């Protein structure tokens, strides 16, 4: 079984004044679950995601994936970035096949996989467009297809819908859930949107900022497909807001100039 076990992980950025980005995070991510990491900006949630992706290493503690300590990027871990970071000199198709191409999969063998995931994310007919010809939502779809086409076991998503308009975002959330159910992958989804976290996640991990600490974990056992505006979901949402607010009162007095 593959899953993450995050053991007492801290991340300190060096420099003249060292900054503690994350402090003593202890968390298990189960295989196949949809986990949302929620927190305000500066709470280190993107740092945590990059460590899960092997793009950064913890300063102390360890992250175990499967049965090995994570030392760097791993083929089984796919990442969807906030800024989709498609390569502007490649078409949508060529962007999506990047992972397979780097792994040396033959061109003919790549084609079917790429086409399958382009269809899955709803980009049929856009294969030969360049990224600058796509809308924000479509770029994110392409970014998702690029991660999926490499056939990872885990999708690590860093505020992927942060930059698209609200209605597009709702649609992308629905589509993501469908894909998650069809593909049976573990998803770790970073967001600062409480509503989004509660609608998507099996669990929501709330981080508090400066330094980033694990504040509270919320279980969301509601059946899927979920209704937006479901009373039970709203209740959890309010609990989360309460937890955030309490946190603010304690740790971050407002300064007025």
């Amino acid at each position, binding site marked *: 079984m593959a899953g993450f076990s995050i053991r007492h992980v801290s991340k300190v950025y060096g420099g003249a004044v060292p900054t503690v980005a994350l402090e003593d995070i202890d968390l298990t991510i189960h295989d196949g679950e949809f986990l949302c990491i929620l927190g305000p900006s500066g709470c280190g949630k993107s740092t945590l995601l990059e460590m899960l992706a092997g793009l950064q290493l913890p300063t102390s503690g360890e992250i175990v994936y499967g049965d090995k300590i994570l030392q760097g990027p791993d*083929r089984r871990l796919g990442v969807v970035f906030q800024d989709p*970071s498609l390569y502007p000199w490649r078409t949508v198709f060529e962007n999506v096949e990047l992972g397979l191409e780097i792994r040396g999969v033959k061109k003919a063998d790549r084609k079917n996989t790429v086409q399958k995931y382009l269809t899955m994310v709803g980009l049929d007919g856009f294969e030969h467009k*360049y990224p600058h010809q796509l809308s924000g939502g479509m770029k994110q779809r392409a970014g998702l297809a690029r991660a999926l086409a490499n056939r990872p076991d885990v999708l690590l998503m860093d505020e992927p819908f942060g930059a698209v308009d609200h209605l597009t975002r709702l649609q992308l959330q629905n589509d993501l859930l469908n894909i998650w159910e069809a593909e049976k992958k573990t998803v770790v989804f970073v967001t600062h949107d409480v509503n989004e976290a509660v609608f998507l996640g099996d669990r929501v991990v709330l981080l508090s900022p400066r330094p980033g600490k694990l504040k509270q974990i919320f279980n969301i056992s509601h059946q899927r497909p979920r209704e937006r505006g479901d009373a039970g979901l709203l209740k959890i949402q309010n609990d989360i807001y309460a937890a955030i607010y309490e946190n603010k009162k304690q740790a971050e007095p407002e300064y007025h100039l």
Partner: protein
Amino acid sequence: MSERGILWRIVAGQILLLVLFLGTVEVVVQKGIVGRLYLSAPTQVVQELVKLLQQSETFRNLYVTLLEFTLGFGLSVVLGFGIGLFLVLVSRAEQFFNPFLSALMAIPKVTIVPLLTLWLGIGLVHKVAVVFLFCIFPIIYNTVAGIKQTSENYLKVARVFEATSYQTVTKVILPSAVPSIFAGLRVSAGSGLIGALFGEMLASKEGLGNMLVQSTSLYDTARVFALITVVTVVSILIIAFINLLEKKVFLRWKSS
């Protein structure tokens, strides 16, 4: 007034200004207000240009200049690009070589040309060296700048897919540096042609620069203006060719 109407007026104004200017020069020269030694009437220049284009000598010299330019420019593209890559990709290389490069770049290149004559004579090799000297630095500089500008996020994507260093260079770093590299090529192409002409004007047996100097020393002013016209057209064509290459081969992704 509509945007289109304004545009037409601007174009009409531009044509008018040009005609006025050329007409004034024509009259000033024809009436003898300024001697034919100093200035040429546009009609004379056109006649001279037609004459030039009928002489095989012109094309032989044009060929010589273009050959010098092409060899020198080609050499600087290959070496400049290679040096640029080396500086950024080999760790600490830029840090080490930077003072030397800056010093070399700061030398006004024209001052080296007579020395090059001493070392290399007045033939093709000399001109190629001059063109090379005029071209190489902007190419190195822009290659380095382009590579360094590669977005951190593009590199992250490559790392996630576990790209090798070689793959990262060929699939990410180079493609993203293409616009900057081409900016360098355009700058160098212009100065490379200047280098070829300047070298020929200083010390040579042939080439358009040589023709220019000869015509000037024979006080054949109309021919000088005609040659300037030819050189200008060549310069425009070279830049247009580079733009076309960039658009068709390397930047399909920006053209539409």
